[in-house]
């Protein structure tokens, strides 16, 4: 029985209504799926707690923390499989959903890392090519440091490794999706898979068409030695053109061709749609336990490569970054520092998703 201060019936009703309103506000910290399962009983507990301790900052903070953790768990970045309504599903199905969410988050974080990492790579390649051009001029000062060269080669290898892992990860997912689309799978699954698949195909097509049409503005290798073929470098540069310090200099940005500026604004949206569609496919494909284990292992390898990539970037920024005091034309700027911060965040999310997937697979 929830204790209550002595009050008139009218006052009691008003207090109860106020407590319910506050409890309802607190419950909003939790995600929809959690609320569907626990909202009623949790609200009752909160109403009782509010009656005992009307003002409690500790309770608000505790509920906020619980809600944020539940949201992270729902995104597959923490916690455990959330069961459905009692008796409506078994634990295995809940764990399957949680595992799919973790793998989906792992894929999305890795894809974001690859995109921002490719922009860093592109910056390094530009520096490499221009340094090679300047070297041809008599009396030119050396432009590249050992850290620049190490980062260029190391990051090139890491990007190739990440692309290989991405291809290995995509293959079984696409095979599973194709099988589900041809055999039907669960009721309604065809539609739930077809939408993100079509969206992903459209976004990738837009990226290829847009990137190819803008890549002509790439400075080109000018026939000089480059660690990667000029066409590949140009395409990567074009697709990641939006990672640019020019956003902070509107006057200079205004001098860019209209098509290039439009592409700089549009391409992050297209990339976000592509990543979200791929993540939805992973989440909805109902991967077999064997494929899920394979994907989780690839995720661990992916996290290792991303860590090496970030370490190379950090060494590059330390030696040739904005605080290193070099005055040569090509050096890492604040945009590269900001990119490295984003890379660190996406790596942290990927590691967390990978650990959550591992825990779910081992049944813990």
């Amino acid at each position, binding site marked *: 029985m*929830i204790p209550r201060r002595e009050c008139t019936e009218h006052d009691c009703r008003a207090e109860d209504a106020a407590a319910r309103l506050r409890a309802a506000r607190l419950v909003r910290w939790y995600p929809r799926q*959690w609320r569907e*399962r*626990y909202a*009623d*009983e*949790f*609200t*009752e*507990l*909160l109403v*009782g*707690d509010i009656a005992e301790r009307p003002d409690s900052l*500790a*309770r608000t903070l*505790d*509920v*906020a*923390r*619980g*809600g944020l*953790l*539940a949201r992270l768990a729902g995104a597959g970045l923490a*916690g*455990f*499989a*959330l*069961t459905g309504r*009692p008796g409506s599903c078994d*634990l295995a199905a*809940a*764990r399957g959903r949680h595992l799919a969410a973790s793998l989906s988050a792992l894929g999305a974080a890795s894809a974001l890392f690859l995109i921002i990492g490719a922009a860093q790579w592109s910056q390094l390649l530009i520096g490499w090519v221009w340094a090679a051009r300047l070297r041809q001029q008599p009396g030119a000062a050396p432009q590249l440091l050992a850290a620049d060269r190490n980062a260029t080669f190391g990051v090139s290898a890491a990007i190739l490794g990440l692309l290989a892992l991405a291809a290995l990860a995509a293959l079984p997912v696409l095979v599973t999706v194709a099988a589900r689309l041809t055999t039907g799978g669960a009721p309604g699954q065809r539609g739930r898979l077809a939408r993100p698949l079509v969206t992903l195909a459209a976004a990738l097509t837009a990226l290829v068409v847009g990137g190819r049409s803008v890549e002509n503005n790439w400075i080109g290798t000018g026939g000089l030695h480059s660690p990667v073929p000029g066409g590949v470098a140009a395409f990567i540069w074009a697709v990641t053109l939006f990672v640019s310090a020019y956003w902070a200099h509107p006057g200079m940005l205004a001098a860019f061709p209209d098509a290039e500026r439009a592409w700089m604004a549009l391409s992050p949206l297209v990339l976000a749609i592509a990543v979200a569609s791929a993540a939805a496919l992973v989440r909805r494909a109902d991967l077999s336990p064997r494929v899920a284990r394979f994907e989780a292992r690839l995720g661990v390898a992916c996290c290792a490569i991303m860590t090496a990539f970030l370490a190379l970037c950090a060494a590059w920024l330390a030696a040739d970054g904005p605080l290193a005091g070099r005055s040569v034309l090509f050096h890492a700027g604040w945009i590269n520092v900001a990119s490295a911060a984003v890379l660190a965040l996406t790596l942290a999310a990927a590691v967390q998703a990978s650990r959550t997937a591992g825990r779910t697979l081992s049944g*813990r």
Partner: protein
Amino acid sequence: MAHRNAGTPADDAVLAGFGRYAGPATLILSSLADGAKHGYALTKDVEEFAGVRLAPGTLYEALSRLESQGMIEALKAEDRRRPYRLTAAGAAALRAHLAAQRRATDTGLRRLAVNWGSA
């Protein structure tokens, strides 16, 4: 309803795997060992026997973890409050966890008595 199967170290590992939630989970399982209870009754019972007040967010974090691990199960809701009861797996995990804690407690008390005298 009595479950006589002895808890194993593996059972204890399950509860220890809860990390910072092992404390609230142990308290909740101990409370439910006495019979099914809903959230508010659980809070009051734990406060009474352990002197710890479980905050609502912490309580439901632990409850949802325990439910997802199959250590407790939800019963039919009564007037919007849903009681929970201990499962056999939960009883085994609690028994193993408490046995491990008792070994540590007994060792600590014995060493205190030998080296520091009895209180």
